[in-house]
């Protein structure tokens, strides 16, 4: 991790000094353990603030739509896939970007670690490639890193950036032979009533703070449908129908556009597993179109395209 950090800093300094970019988008160390803060560095003198560890989970593509400057971005596999999508959707141009690719070993889930500590507060967390060392007021604990990864990282099959201008480390072997959709199969096999009950339970804690939406790199609509006021599409209370409408519609809007970066779930203050909804649609798109979002700059999401020679009758 330390080597990756040093490499990111070196590259950032070079890019800024040589004026290849106007700014570098990366992370700085957080003010609390197991947290980092997205940061934009404009001056070469500031590059030492850049940081890298297992808690740089936020998806930096979120900060790119409509930027006008030339910016270097520290990009994991998921960040790079969202950058591909944003490029395809004309939110940013590829030639504005310089991607500092980071082959990712999976990010650690702060909440999973906190749950393991069961109320004991971590005051300092350090890591090696295999372990996390956690120190608190009167305890020390060593955890195996791979056992505390974020759920989406556990089932990630694109840890290497899919596009990049330079890499900070050798490419990492990709995971294969895993079932990305275990939780989805479990819901799919339920009856309609059971499924409805499942969604009721899943979304009951929602406080409509919209952190999931705002954290999402693909939720960049200038005005989200829930914020339309003339006419207003959706009630503003915590009515469960309105809440479900928000979540379902948001998920549908992401069909074929979601990379399962997990930024939504990471941001939710109530720990709601909102990825279940987007993953079901990801699975459908894979089944129907054999398409995975954000892998190629040549292939736009299937629901974003139209072909006059489409074989299906209804579209003509």
């Amino acid at each position: 991790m330390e080597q990756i950090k040093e490499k990111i800093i070196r590259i950032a300094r070079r890019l800024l000094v040589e004026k290849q970019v106007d700014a570098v988008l990366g992370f700085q160390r957080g003010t609390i353990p197991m947290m980092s803060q997205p940061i934009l560095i404009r001056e070469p003198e500031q590059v030492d603030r850049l940081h890298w560890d297992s808690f740089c989970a936020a998806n930096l593509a979120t900060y790119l739509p409509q930027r006008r400057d030339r910016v270097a971005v520290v990009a994991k596999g998921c960040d790079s896939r969202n950058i591909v999508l944003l490029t395809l959707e004309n939110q940013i141009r590829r030639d504005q970007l310089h991607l500092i690719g980071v082959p990712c070993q999976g990010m650690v889930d702060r909440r999973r670690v906190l749950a393991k500590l069961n109320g004991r507060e971590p005051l300092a967390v350090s890591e090696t490639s295999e372990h996390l060392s956690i120190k608190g007021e009167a305890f020390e604990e060593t955890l195996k890193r791979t056992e505390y990864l974020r759920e989406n990282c556990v089932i990630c099959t694109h840890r290497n950036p899919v596009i990049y201008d330079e890499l900070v480390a050798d490419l990492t072997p990709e995971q294969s032979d895993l079932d990305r959709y275990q939780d989805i199969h479990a819901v799919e096999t339920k009856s309609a009533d059971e499924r409805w009950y499942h969604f009721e339970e899943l979304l009951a804690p929602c406080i409509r703070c919209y952190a999931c939406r705002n954290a999402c790199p693909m939720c960049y609509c200038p005005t989200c449908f829930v914020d339309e006021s003339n006419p207003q599409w959706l009630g503003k209370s915590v009515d469960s129908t309105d809440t479900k409408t928000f979540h379902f519609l948001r998920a549908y809007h992401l069909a074929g556009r979601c990379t399962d970066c997990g930024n939504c779930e990471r941001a939710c203050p109530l720990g709601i597993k909102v990825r279940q909804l987007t993953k079901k649609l990801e699975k459908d798109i894979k089944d129907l179109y054999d398409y995975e979002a954000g892998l190629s700059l040549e292939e736009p999401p299937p629901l974003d395209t139209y072909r006059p020679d489409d074989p299906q009758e209804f579209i003509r």
Partner: protein
Amino acid sequence: MADKIIKKADLPALLSRLLDHYRVYAPVRHQGMTNFQEISAADQVDLSHVNTTLSPKSLMLPQSESMFEFTLDRTSDQVGVLREIEKDFSPRIIFGIRPCDAKSFQLLDLNFDTPTYRDPWWVKRRQSTTLIGLGCNDPCSTCFCTSVGSGPFSTDGLDILFIDAGDEFAIQTVTEKGEQTFSKVEIGAEGSNATTDAVLSVQERALKLMKSAVHSKNLKDQDEKALFEADFWDEVQFGCINCGVCTFVCPTCWCFDIQDEVHKGNGIRLRNWDACMFPLFTLHGSGHNPRAQKLQRVRQRFMHKLKYFVDKYDVGVACVGCGRCVQQCPVNIDIRHVFRLMNDLGA
């Protein structure tokens, strides 16, 4: 120091007796998060948390409150009449509230219960509620209550304070309302010197555990315009994704929006939480938005808490140091850092 003590083993029996007279709200653990809920039995209560994920603000200011109902039916003699929707203001207890959260209700009183405006539901909820606090033996590293006028065992805003003193709770009755509660419900024995010693030792230990402090003494004298135009906002706001997490978990964010919802000619008028993080909060009917930019919205949140409130009420900042926003911001915007930037500007 302690008026009374109660063995920990006797707490469920006490809560059961309280349930005979009151609606009781207490921290309940559900799916790994602890939040305040109305309980029906003592065994639902979980006091192992540092603090609840959400503040108890919603118990006084519900996230969505149905205020009035009305009809659009022109043939009805009720057309054009707003009828108040009945609410339950029967006596209730919030048990296990932390001193910082109790203090937040006092700060919100400044807005909802003023000589000019008295929000009737806020006032009635405050009057019908007895606050039984639980002191913080183990403050967490992001707690900074002691530097914003509260403390892990502060009794401000509380009617009764429980302090965990090992095998027993030491109980301090703070207000007349607290005394009335215990005149209805029998509690434990008189405190002893041993209890007093135990309480002093947990208090001393807790203060040592407090790791965070903020500086606010310059805020009042800082020039409002200089703060407003300060360069640091650009960096403070960069990472912000403009979600409402900080405002929704904050015990002192009180802003709301009023909406009518109509279905088949019958409507209700609702009051919903709203937040300065959202562009819609300030969108004018004309389409103009005075806070269209993220920077303006982020700045507003901190300026309101740490400058406008300070200037308007002269009772310190609109922050009780609970640290929820620090713990839960997905991109680590840390109010303690913003305190420093604002307080130290020009120094």
